[in-house]
């Protein structure tokens, strides 16, 4: 696996898109910290950008990269190594490249302008979302033969998580406001990884006005620190579940 990882990473290191992604994040981050007079406000604005863009870029880039590498993956699959090692190496390399992009592009400005726990939590949240959406992207690329269909599906999944699911959750809360639905909000919010990332950041910043209902429920049920840990654990599950599904699909895949 590490051989596939190493050479995939070398290929990704020279990939123009990965470099462009890092520069875009650097530009946005420095721009926000320059524009806002309070670093916390800039960090919150940056969190909105990261929580929306990171999943989009991670899933679509992973899908496109894995489709473009399909013939090479086929060549790897006729070498004497297990398929799980091929996919493991490729996914890990994709995760590493995009995580480095986020760390350099958003991490450096964040730690330079606001070196505190909230910035670290935002970074952690962005890194976890990167891994979650690399796994989701890999699953989509493996399960669908056509590139256009795969990319389209990636966009639909992103749109569902970034916007539609939140709207549905809000509607549920509104429609059932007369009932004791708070205990249901914890698992329901965990079904959206982007929501989990947002909850982690807002629990750390502790701005009740911005926390939203699901964040407030997490705070009420678990307190700030435990709430972050529960959200982080749920994000780990979000990395593990699509990865496991992708590995299973890859083992059975016909090229």
């Amino acid at each position, binding site marked *: 696996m590490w051989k596939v990882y190493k050479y995939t990473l070398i290929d990704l290191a020279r990939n123009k898109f990965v470099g462009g992604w890092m520069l875009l994040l650097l530009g946005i981050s420095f721009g926000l910290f320059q524009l806002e007079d309070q670093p916390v406000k800039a960090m919150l604005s940056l969190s909105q950008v990261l929580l929306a863009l990171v999943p989009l870029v991670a899933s679509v880039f992973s899908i496109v990269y894995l489709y473009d590498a399909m013939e090479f993956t086929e*060549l790897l699959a006729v070498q004497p190594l297990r398929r799980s090692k091929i996919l493991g190496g490729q996914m890990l390399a994709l995760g590493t490249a995009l995580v480095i992009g986020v760390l350099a592009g958003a991490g450096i400005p964040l730690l330079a302008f606001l070196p505190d726990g909230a910035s670290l939590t935002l970074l952690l949240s962005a890194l976890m979302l990167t891994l979650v959406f690399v796994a989701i992207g890999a699953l989509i690329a493996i399960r669908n033969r056509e590139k256009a269909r795969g990319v389209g599906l990636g966009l639909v999944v992103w749109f569902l998580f970034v916007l539609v699911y939140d709207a549905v959750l809000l509607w549920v809360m509104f429609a059932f406001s007369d009932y004791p639905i708070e205990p249901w909000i914890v698992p329901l919010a965990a079904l959206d990884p982007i929501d989990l990332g947002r909850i982690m950041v807002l629990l750390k910043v502790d701005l009740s006005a911005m926390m939203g209902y699901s964040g407030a429920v997490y705070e009420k049920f678990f307190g700030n620190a435990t709430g972050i840990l529960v959200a982080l654990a749920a994000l780990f599950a979000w990395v593990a579940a699509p990865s496991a599904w992708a590995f299973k699909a890859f083992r059975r895949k016909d090229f």
Partner: protein
Amino acid sequence: MERVIFEGVGKRYGRMWALREFNARFVPGETVSVIGPNGSGKTTMIKCLLGLVHATTGAIRVNGQPVGPDPAYRHQVGYMPQISRFPNELKIGQLIDLMDDLRGHERNRTGGPLVNALGVDAMLDKRLGTLSGGQRQKVSAVLAFRYSPSVLVLDEPTAGLDPISAEIVLDAVRNIKRDGCTVLITSHLMEEVEALADRIAYLQDGTLRFLLPPEEIQAATGHARLSKAIPAMLTNTAKSHVESL
């Protein structure tokens, strides 16, 4: 002893059988040309052998080892696909290093058959994304022949190659066969089939119509040229099939 054994191998996609009840035995030191119209099951058959496609029915053995989840048998297999694409940003030398590592061979970029003959040694620092289709085919040929495979699978190996490089690859096929390698080769070029094949496997609609030496096909049909003999053979086998009904 047979090198490759197909026993009742079939592959179904949904309701359609791409390959049905394929039975064949290939021995060391023979070259088998796998031919047939588009969609006849050639690629499916080859991909079943390589483990790229999971057979729905039957079993395949390579040197007695089953084709399955255990990838050990692939140490003995070389493969040159029809279309080669590699990571754009890697250099040819790095690709060869990777394959050497995966095969457990000592790294030696300039060693091995065809590296020098196809001029790949002069391109080791070139990025794979900058190569033409023909240059990619040369790299692919180098990798296929590199690890002295006992089974070599070539899918349209000369497609996209210039005539001199094509001849070098065909010579390499003759040499490796002489060393006891079993070569399975798909081609649409009848001259290539005539030049290389010890036996011809003709597939149609996923079914093996015949697996015979060219001389037998020529003798049975009375045609010296395979381009005439094979269609005549198909007509003969169809007639005898109808008569047997």
